[in-house]
């Protein structure tokens, strides 16, 4: 008996040793792999903040950052946007709207092939678009009433029932897949015309990619590309510092300073289309008066809050939409002035005693910001109850206007004010209990012109109304921080947090 027990103990100890031993061996692996690849493009490991759960760019997850990231590597868009109002053709060589921007005609690039060698034809584009419409995902909401047609092999015509000047912006999130995408299981091992092809995919965990030798814009230099999901910040930062991961982004400000001190890491921020948006519910009796809303805005010292909490990625905003978006127009900054705020509230007859402003948000990383704002408002006697809600609850309450104040980091899809101001601020949308017929008219007009200068002008007018009426507080423009190891070359940060990797190479570490 003794002997047996000793033996099993020894075996156990052996097993543990084995674990540790194995651990020690393979922990060197990432380094040796990256080090081992000489002249070629190397192996790149990327850890985004959001897991890639689904490769289908048409369905329910179509606007997920994870799905978009994967799609940009695997598939191609008709056009990509390079900034406010700037678009570049990818599958499309050229495009042309009609006069009122309700019919858009695209001419496809010649000789583009899917990775299985079949050419990308207009029928594929139409099929993909129909899939989007049928898929009932968030992307479909952009194209209500649209139809697509393929008059010939290389031409696709999109027709909208109403004028839609922002179509290019919206369609830049649209990826083209082969018609076979409708088949079951296609996205387990999808075929696309993007720079990379899928080697293996574990939804929510890792996506292994290899360069697509037949990519129309030239085969990417990388030997392999791996997307990993590391949700926990500390782990992600550590992985970057140890070299397990080569590129990451969307780090909290407090981590950036530490990364900057690491000589092996490059940190760079780019302006993003996102704005900290704190809508105030105009249908709440206490907040109906725009004077009250303005006063509340005045009462918060956003400058020092931003300076302390977001020294890296935040700049005080001067518009409801970001400078990275078409239609941006700077407004008169709201100065921090608690006395004036207090006086204005008093003048408006604000009931300090009985008013509790229910402030909803859903992301834990807003907590510090929320705490700080609440603290400032408490200074002048305004009670705010922060309500951190689970995402689904938050969304439901958001639509139901079951809040007095709301916090979102609101992006602008396609870098076009149409998808932000144009969609959210109309009376019909009723997203923040605010209804202004003058604003409605301006937005409608902006949506039905294809003339960019005119649209910019109209959105500037809209921004001014929104800003001055304090439909919400717009405290901060958000920059997107990226960090990559210095061994990575050719990495180009992009504003929307969904980077491309076709021109990246990795040198020996």
């Amino acid at each position, binding site marked *: 008996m003794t002997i047996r027990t000793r033996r099993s103990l020894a075996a156990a100890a052996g097993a543990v040793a084995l674990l540790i031993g194995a651990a020690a061996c393979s922990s060197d692996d990432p380094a040796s792999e990256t080090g081992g690849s000489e002249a070629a493009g190397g192996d790149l490991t990327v850890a985004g903040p959001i897991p890639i759960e689904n490769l289908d760019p048409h369905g329910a997850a179509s606007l997920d950052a994870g799905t978009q990231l994967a799609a940009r590597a695997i598939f191609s868009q008709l056009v990509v946007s390079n900034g406010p109002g700037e678009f570049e053709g990818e599958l499309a060589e050229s495009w042309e709207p009609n006069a009122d921007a309700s019919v858009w005609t695209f001419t496809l690039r010649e000789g583009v092939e899917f990775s299985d060698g079949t050419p990308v034809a207009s029928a594929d584009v139409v099929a993909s678009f129909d899939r989007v419409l049928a898929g009932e995902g968030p992307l479909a909401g952009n194209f209500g009433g649209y139809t697509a047609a393929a008059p010939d092999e290389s031409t696709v015509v999109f027709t909208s029932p109403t004028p839609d000047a922002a179509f290019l912006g919206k369609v830049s999130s649209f990826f083209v897949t082969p018609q076979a995408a409708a088949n079951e299981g296609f996205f387990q091992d999808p075929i696309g015309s993007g720079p990379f092809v899928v080697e293996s995919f574990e939804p929510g965990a890792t996506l292994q990619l290899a360069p697509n030798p037949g990519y129309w814009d030239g085969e990417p230099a990388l030997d392999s590309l791996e997307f990993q999901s590391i949700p926990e*910040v*500390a782990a992600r*930062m550590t992985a970057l510092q140890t070299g397990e991961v080569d590129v990451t982004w969307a780090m*909290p400000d*407090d*981590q950036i300073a*530490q990364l900057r001190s690491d000589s092996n890491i490059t940190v760079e921020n780019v302006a993003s289309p996102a704005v900290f948006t704190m809508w105030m519910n105009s249908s709440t009796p206490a907040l109906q008066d725009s004077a009250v809303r303005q006063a509340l805005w005045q009462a918060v010292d956003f400058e*020092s*809050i931003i300076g*302390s*909490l977001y020294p890296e990625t935040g700049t005080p905003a001067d518009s409801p939409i970001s400078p990275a978006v078409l239609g941006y127009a700077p407004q008169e900054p709201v100065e921090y002035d608690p006395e004036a705020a207090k006086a204005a509230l008093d003048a408006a007859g604000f009931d300090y005693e009985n008013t509790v402003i229910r402030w909803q948000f859903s992301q*834990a990383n807003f*907590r*510090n910001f*929320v*705490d*700080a704002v*609440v*603290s400032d408002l*408490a200074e002048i006697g305004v009670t705010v*109850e*922060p*309500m*951190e*809600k*689970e995402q*689904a*609850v938050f969304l439901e309450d958001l639509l139901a206007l079951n809040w007095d104040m709301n916090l979102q980091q609101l992006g602008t899809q396609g870098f076009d004010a149409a998808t932000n101001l144009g969609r959210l601020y109309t009376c019909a949308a009723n997203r923040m209990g605010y209804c202004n017929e003058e604003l409605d008219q301006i937005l409608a007009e902006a949506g039905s012109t294809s003339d960019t200068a005119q649209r910019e002008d109209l959105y500037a007018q809209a921004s001014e109304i929104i800003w001055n009426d304090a439909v919400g507080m717009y405290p901060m423009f958000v920059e997107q921080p990226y960090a990559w190891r210095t061994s990575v070359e050719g990495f180009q940060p992009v504003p929307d947090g969904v980077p491309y990797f076709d021109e990246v190479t990795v040198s020996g570490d």
Partner: protein
Amino acid sequence: MTQSDILLTEAPGPAAPPVRRRRRRPLAAIPYVIIGVYVLAAAIGPFLIDYDPVATEVTERLLPPGSATGSGTAWLGTDAVGRDVLAQVVYGARTSFIIGIAVVTVCCLIGVALGAIAGYSGGLPDAVVSRTIDILMAFPGILLAIVIAGLLERGMHVVIIALSVGGWVGFARLSRSITMSTRERDWVDAARIMGVSKPATLKRHIVPFLAGSVVALATIELASAVLSEAALSFLGLGLPPHIVSWGQAIAGGREHLSTAWWITVFPGIALTILVICIGLVGDRLTRRFTRKRD
């Protein structure tokens, strides 16, 4: 005379051997003292330390322990929005106690009642309770907590409910099994023969014998409730932001572990010491109880 194989001989020697008093262990009192200090801190600490969880001072964020702030010295440093960590530890004690004690009380009442009834009655009530226990045990508690946290607005009561929904199962299982064995004891039969009613038999002749084990389990559950609150906060499903708790503090400081360790370490130490002390007391209770039962 035959030869003796065994001879027990008593040397006249000292009749009374040196009396060895049972060693009084001064160390044994330590857990009680520490728990006492915590309770005291939770009870009166908030009156001594002026702390407003709503007030933040972002310019004084992430200050190391001992730094001077606008309102005095932050002995244990400040957190990510400039609040005093010491004050959080003190106020957090109160939250942890309230949550822990509330959860344990709720679980205990429900669990003991259901367990005792199931164990004593057998048959259908037992089947219903046992299957419910089976289902809850096969159901990840975290899922329940997540759903409850989503179903109801954030608040301390929600955390208490979320932790209680699955927490009573342990008490029910324990009560049921002890009841089933106590039911077989002669004094229960004696009571039945006398004609004592079922509820009175349960109350007088069975439930008092659950007390020891249940109290011992309660200490374990108390410790685990305090820890679970922290875990819920970590998953972002815990208390609302304006309620201070150790769990909140630890979870909130996790992004600063490598730079501002004090945010998590001090509440963590407070939590760990409390849990150890409660556990030591629980161990002692368990031991005393199991010794008594024989």
